[in-house]
């Protein structure tokens, strides 16, 4: 995954654990310089090919805006009266869809991971639905939900549900049986064992599911907004294209990236905050 960019000093125990932004602080300056240079190089290539309106036959940059254009477009967007509406509309849909997916996914996953009769009833239908990409649900979602708002939230929900559910189920199933046995030998009943051992034991996997889920939620939301919607970043991106405001299209894309990255980082941070025991080698 992000292994190569999060490697810290060799004598640092956290070097072997990819832990996101936290380790960036510990990186050597030359590494950070190299990373910044890589991003700048990408911007440079973008600038040159769009400035030259490079046309290679199979690909053309004739209509692609330059970085400077996009920066201006970004400023225009951010200072426009509708910017907040677009961003808030998308944030709200992701919030509701992801929130519902979290509740349904964690509850179903915990039960499916621990109780085979429940798993046998619930998992087969879900396994059939799972390979269907959330995008393919869009027409049906529009038919099923009278409000386009609800259909978009539904698509987001579907997108986030499976990573959360499957990771939770896996985590609940993989809890060390010796820990469960220890709890029983210490006097814990069934419900107490579930709350005190199975849930915290599965928590790291649940958090992994949530981090993946928030990413897929954004992915699905933007697609849904391109098709039905009046506000939202996805809608803005597609609308800009249809009115030939190509700067706006790229601004929308970048905004989606930033919001997606920001929300995954937020989920990861919250996850770290509720699992303090996993940060120990970083603290010491």
């Amino acid at each position, binding site marked *: 995954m992000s292994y190569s960019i999060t490697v810290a000093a060799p004598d640092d125990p956290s070097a072997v654990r990819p832990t996101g932004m936290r380790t960036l602080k510990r990186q050597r300056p030359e590494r950070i310089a190299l990373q910044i240079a890589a991003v700048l190089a990408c911007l440079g290539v973008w600038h040159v090919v769009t400035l030259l309106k490079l046309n290679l036959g199979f690909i053309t940059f004739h209509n692609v805006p330059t970085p400077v254009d996009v920066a201006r477009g970004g400023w225009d967007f951010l200072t426009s009266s509708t910017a907040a509406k677009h961003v808030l509309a998308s944030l709200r849909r992701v919030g509701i869809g992801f929130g519902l997916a979290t509740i349904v996914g964690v509850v179903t996953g915990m039960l499916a991971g621990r109780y085979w009769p429940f798993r046998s009833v619930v998992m087969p239908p879900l396994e059939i639905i799972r390979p269907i990409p959330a995008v393919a649900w869009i027409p049906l979602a529009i038919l099923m939900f009278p409000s386009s708002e609800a259909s978009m939230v539904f698509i987001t929900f579907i997108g986030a549900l499976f990573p959360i559910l499957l990771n939770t189920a896996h985590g609940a199933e993989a809890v060390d049986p010796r820990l469960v046995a220890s709890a029983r030998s210490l*006097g814990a009943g069934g419900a107490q064992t579930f709350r005190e051992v199975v849930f*915290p034991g599965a928590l790291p996997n649940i958090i992994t599911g949530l981090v993946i889920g928030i990413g897929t939620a954004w992915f699905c939301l933007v697609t849904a907004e391109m098709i039905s919607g009046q506000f939202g970043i996805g809608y803005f991106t597609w609308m800009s294209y249809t009115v030939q405001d190509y700067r706006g299209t790229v601004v929308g894309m970048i905004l989606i990236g930033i919001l997606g990255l920001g929300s995954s980082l937020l989920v990861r941070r919250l996850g770290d905050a509720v699992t303090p025991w996993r940060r120990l080698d970083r603290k010491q």
Partner: protein
Amino acid sequence: MMTAGDRTPGHVEVVDLRVRLGEGSQAFDAIVGINLAIAAGSFVCVIGPSGCGKSTLLGALAGHLSPSQGALSVDGRVIVGPSPERGLVFQQQTLFPWMKVIDNVAFGPKMKGRAVRLRRDDAMDMLRLVGLDDFAGFYPSQLSGGMQQRAEIARALINHPSVLLMDEPFGALDAQTRGQMQRQLLETWQKVTTTVVFVTHDIDEALFLADRVLVMSPRPGRIIADFTLHFSRPRDASLLLDPDFATLKTQCRELLGEGQSASLPRLSPIGAAPATVTAAT
């Protein structure tokens, strides 16, 4: 020895016990024909070759494995499932990683609904008993292997079990720590009144700790020898030089037929090898 009117709890009785593990064609008898009476408050070690079923016997006593035949009881009450009356200590790493040491130790009282302040006070007392009071606020992964095992023992003892079941609790420790742990366990045991059933494959360890050593055969495990030891307590390292110790050690070694039996996969008190836990459907 036991008398009819003995009031100390922790008298263990095993009658004609057989435990079958695994499913279908994979099933096998882990232990057969075990008959055993353990006096309340005594320290019994069970030794035997790897995979012989000594941990299975422990698992049955803990209530995690049910007998296919026969019965087990403590103080006349038949064992039907796990209970805090019968504390269990595994070989390693079964403290709850998400709880600080003090909360791990306070787990038993918490399950009984004891208030936070009170159960933490209880836990501190237990941590003092095992010499870990300075580490109450640490997470298990911050402790050494030996300290983790001490915390495990404290966590089991806080429930005042009549029987303490230990499955090779020092098996994963280095020789020096192991020696310290053995001496400390005896010290602790002398302060609490509990029967100890201690499984090990280390003959020295068994002879150093026990009032009584049971030797088991290779699988299916049966008890093939039963030694009562009369070494005085408190014991220290000089015991290892005692000629009687050496004699017993030789006898045990011959019984185990050291190096001759093919080594079987280790069993655990909760069933066969953990790897055979059924995968997702």
